[in-house]
């Protein structure tokens, strides 16, 4: 596909979407301009309210420390400065924590998606003794809130010598029974004739999995991966418990330890918050459509 084609494609899509939205407006709120203006005003107010804390943090992060401690103002009278960012990047382990978070989130994502997809495939497309029992166990473990396992899990990690290691942070996070079920539902919908035909042609189970089932399920795999990644990147409680050495802390844990150390250095505090917030916001901008779809198809919560 050439660039020109891509641009043209984008443009037709955008036009289509605009037409769809206009039709939607007609359908939902009818022709009245007043209702329209009212709804738009409500949206502006809500969105403003929702952006406010981040905007306020961003403004603060570009102030001089002396000014940040003065009563609130949206425009720094002492001038804009990136001092806080320079300070934070050179004096704290922020970049190390960010690297750790990336390593942890990538490992958790790859391992979770892989073992969940394999298990879902086994439940969906193969028959073996004890399959029913295992499926039942998987359903039961969905109800197990991971948070209540922190005490015994920490003990286990001590015994296994995994405190302050990446393995210790990652491994307990890769068990995601919910994902197994989301994927199994999807694999169940693959036309059986297709798989049977491949089997008749002599494809082994591994080939079936790699060359047919996984490629056909790309969309759901990406949705699951994005969710697992966001969860792992933002996870606080478990990494907080299993790391004591700053060299192994993930971003959320590291940030929580320096918050108090900064004391009254508000600009630096906000600068590190902004740096920490940036990566996922960029990910969201890149994958907005997929994330929105992913929430719809996976629809699982958690704070």
């Amino acid at each position, binding site marked *: 596909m050439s660039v020109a084609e891509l641009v043209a494609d984008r443009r037709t899509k955008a036009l289509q979407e605009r037409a769809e939205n206009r039709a939607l407006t007609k359908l939902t709120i009818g022709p009245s301009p007043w209702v329209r203006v009212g709804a738009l005003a*409500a*949206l502006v107010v809500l969105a403003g309210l929702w952006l406010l804390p981040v905007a306020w943090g961003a403004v603060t992060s570009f102030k001089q420390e002396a000014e940040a401690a003065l009563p609130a103002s949206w425009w720094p009278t002492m001038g804009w400065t990136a001092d806080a960012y320079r300070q934070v990047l050179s004096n704290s382990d922020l970049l190390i924590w960010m690297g750790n978070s990336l390593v942890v989130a990538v490992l958790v994502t790859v391992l979770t998606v892989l073992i969940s997809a394999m298990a879902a495939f086994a439940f969906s497309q193969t028959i073996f003794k004890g399959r029913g029992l295992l499926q039942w166990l998987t359903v039961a473990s969905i109800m197990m809130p991971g*948070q209540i396992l922190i005490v*015994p899990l920490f003990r*286990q990690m001590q015994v296994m010598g995994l405190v302050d290691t990446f393995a210790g942070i990652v491994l307990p996070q890769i068990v995601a029974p919910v994902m197994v079920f989301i994927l199994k539902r999807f694999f169940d919908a693959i036309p059986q004739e297709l798989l049977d035909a491949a089997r008749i042609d002599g494809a082994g189970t591994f080939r079936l999995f790699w060359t047919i089932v996984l490629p056909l399920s790309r969309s759901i795999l990406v949705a699951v991966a994005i969710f697992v990644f966001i969860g792992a990147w933002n996870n606080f409680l478990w990494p907080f418990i299993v790391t004591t050495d700053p060299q192994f802390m993930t971003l959320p844990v590291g940030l929580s330890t320096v918050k108090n150390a900064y004391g009254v250095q508000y600009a630096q*505090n906000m600068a590190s918050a902004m740096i920490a917030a940036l990566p*996922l916001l960029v990910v969201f901008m890149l994958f907005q459509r997929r994330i929105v*779809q992913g929430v719809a198809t996976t629809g699982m919560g958690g704070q």
Partner: protein
Amino acid sequence: MTVSNAGVTAPPGRALPDSRKPSGRPAPRTAARGKSLRERDKSGYLFVAPFAVATGLFLLLPTLYGLWMSFTNQSLTGTGSEFIGFANYAEAFSDPQVWQTLWNTVWFTILSTVPLVVVALVMALLVHTGLPGQWVWRMSFFAPYLLTSAVVSSLSSWLFQPDIGLLDTWLAGLGLGPVGWLTDENVAMFSIAAVTVWWTVGFNFLLYLAALQGIPAQQYEAATIDGAGGWRRLFSITLPQLRPITLVILVLQLLASLKVFDQIYLLTAGGPNGSTRPILEYVYDTGFTNYRLGYASAISYVFFALILVFTLVRLLPSKKEA
């Protein structure tokens, strides 16, 4: 999100050879599933093994180990532990802190769940009008959900900062005194709930939005022809159709709110005067600050029982609806 038949299309005017014709009707499930070809497949074990091992090691084992621990006086300092029967549970039931933190958890759940459902619904209805700026609205409402709890608590404690914080500055501008957002026992939990709504409402908003997009346009068209106005359509078409998803969101939200820890620990550390400490933080404090692993496990299981009862009670009526 459907699985296409691997792109088998017939060139115009030529039928496909029989063997590759996509069948018009779904294959009879019972016959196709299982029997002939899958029956001989013995590799299922291999595929399920990694997940089974991980689940065994990091979910089942700690569940059982924690249960056993709750009957011992094990300590974090690692010296031996002995079996003490139900002593931990007896202590837990008579420990005022357990009841206090349980109540705090429930109180937080009540305060946060209602706005997390209602505000999400209002946002979704507004965005679903198709008004211009779709991308901006979605981004603004969902973006906070992508922040980690440490960032959320940094941002909000800066808003709540006494005297020089944004909120107190505004109040001063209106001639009102400062409010102890996080330091006043009567206010702190409300502040935390507000922060939580700001932080996580985006997820519920997207769930509602997806549900709204699933309502067929024909229904609206029919209603329009019948002369139903915008409000009438909202109350007789849109809202009734959202009932099932509302139930899902409500349950997910209740379960999520009950497990609150991060933002409270980071914003107030359970203060002022223990008024915001949730039960999970009490587990954490007991186990990792006071080293009483056995007792911490017992409190965990009391809490788990509560969640389990809630989950099962809610599963019973759902069978009827299905």
